[in-house]
């Protein structure tokens, strides 16, 4: 059985990664990759890694009928086109923020409202580590935000283990790569300006807070810094848990239990917390190019520091989307997602 797939927004960073994954996927076949700017050009014109792929960009106006439509378009495009997308495909896997939140009210609060709120109920948040139930046969899958993904993977075990309570203090300090800005980045993304930075670009009020609150029931303080890498998002979550399981303090061994319980059997979570050698805590470069999340922690008196590192274009976008699509279509969960990382590796 081969499933056909379209990628809308295929000239972008997340769209290009979808092409990389789906073209090597055992069950999917890419039949269409759209770009308005590069129509008729080979996909290798934009994505040099895919020069061997015999595929040209086509106009998003002429969608073919497929099993799965992956939309990797800027915020607003999917909600405007959801009807036509669902007309052309059995399932829509959307990488934008358009179907991540549950209610129109949330879009009013965090974004500029929603133009197709009637579809929100039918959408399922993609991140499988938060729960897989809703994903089987989902019509609309909403792939999570990259920064939200890293943050939630770091925090979820603390919530599950009754360590972290809804009102506990949580500060999430993120460090992210330049590919988060997408292929169309502006002046701040030019190499001379973006190189070597530690740049607080969303000191407060990042929109990813919204999905984290919805998914984990936590409210948190969120600050995002651009650092000098291309791929990668690293979350350092400083938490002050007061839940029932916190009695007489939290020890490292308690944290090992909590994190193992939460992620036992998860194919894409790797626990890294202390240990020896050079790589002792989660690092984005160890998982670059893969769908893995490294998750770790450290106990510090009343504080528990929780870490997660992902490749924003993979686990934070295209990989998560394919993972969820595998589940939605009832495929082998890890199909097409078994890439291994590199060592040594610079700043991928």
């Amino acid at each position, binding site marked *: 059985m081969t499933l056909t797939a379209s990628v809308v927004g295929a000239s972008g960073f997340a769209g290009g990664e979808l092409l990389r994954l789906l073209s090597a996927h055992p069950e999917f076949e890419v039949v269409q990759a759209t770009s308005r700017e590069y129509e008729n050009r080979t996909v290798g014109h934009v994505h040099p890694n895919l020069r061997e792929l015999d595929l040209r960009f086509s106009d998003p106006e002429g969608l073919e009928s497929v099993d799965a439509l992956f939309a990797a378009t800027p915020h607003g495009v999917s909600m405007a086109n959801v009807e036509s997308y669902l007309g052309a495909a059995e399932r829509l896997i959307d990488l934008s923020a358009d179907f991540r939140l549950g209610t129109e009210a949330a879009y009013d609060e965090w974004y500029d409202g929603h133009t197709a709120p009637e579809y929100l109920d039918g959408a399922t948040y993609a991140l499988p580590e938060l729960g897989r139930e809703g994903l089987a046969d989902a019509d609309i899958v909403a792939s999570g935000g990259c920064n939200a993904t890293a943050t939630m993977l770091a925090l979820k075990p603390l919530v599950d283990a009754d360590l972290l309570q809804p009102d506990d203090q949580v500060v999430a300090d993120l460090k992210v790569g330049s590919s988060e800005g997408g292929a169309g980045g502006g002046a*701040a993304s030019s190499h001379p300006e973006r190189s070597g930075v530690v740049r607080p*670009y969303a000191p407060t009020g990042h929109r990813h807070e919204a999905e984290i609150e919805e998914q984990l029931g936590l409210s948190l303080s969120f600050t995002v810094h*651009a650092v000098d890498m291309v791929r990668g998002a690293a979350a350092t979550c400083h938490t002050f848990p007061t839940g029932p399981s916190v009695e007489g303090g939290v020890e490292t061994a308690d944290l090992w239990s909590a994190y193992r319980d939460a992620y036992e059997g998860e194919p894409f979570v790797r626990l890294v917390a202390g240990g020896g050698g050079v790589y002792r805590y989660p690092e984005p470069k160890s998982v670059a190019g893969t769908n893995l999340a490294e998750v770790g922690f450290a106990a510090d008196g009343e504080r528990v520091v929780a870490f997660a590192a992902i490749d924003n274009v993979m686990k934070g976008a295209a990989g998560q989307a394919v993972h969820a699509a595998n589940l939605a279509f009832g495929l082998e969960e890890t199909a097409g997602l078994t890439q291994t990382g590199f060592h040594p590796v610079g700043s991928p």
Partner: protein
Amino acid sequence: MSEADCVTCGDSVALPEDAEVGEIVDCGSCGTELEVVGVDPAELAEAPDLAEDWGE
């Protein structure tokens, strides 16, 4: 040369002599981009935010 207060940090901003309504200046102290919304007397308002472009 007229002056007006920055709406963000309160510092005084000197306007160019030929300042016209609609022009943009930035506060020399905090850098906020300010639109000239009145010239006699000089008055400033925060310029339409460009932050959207700035972030990633």
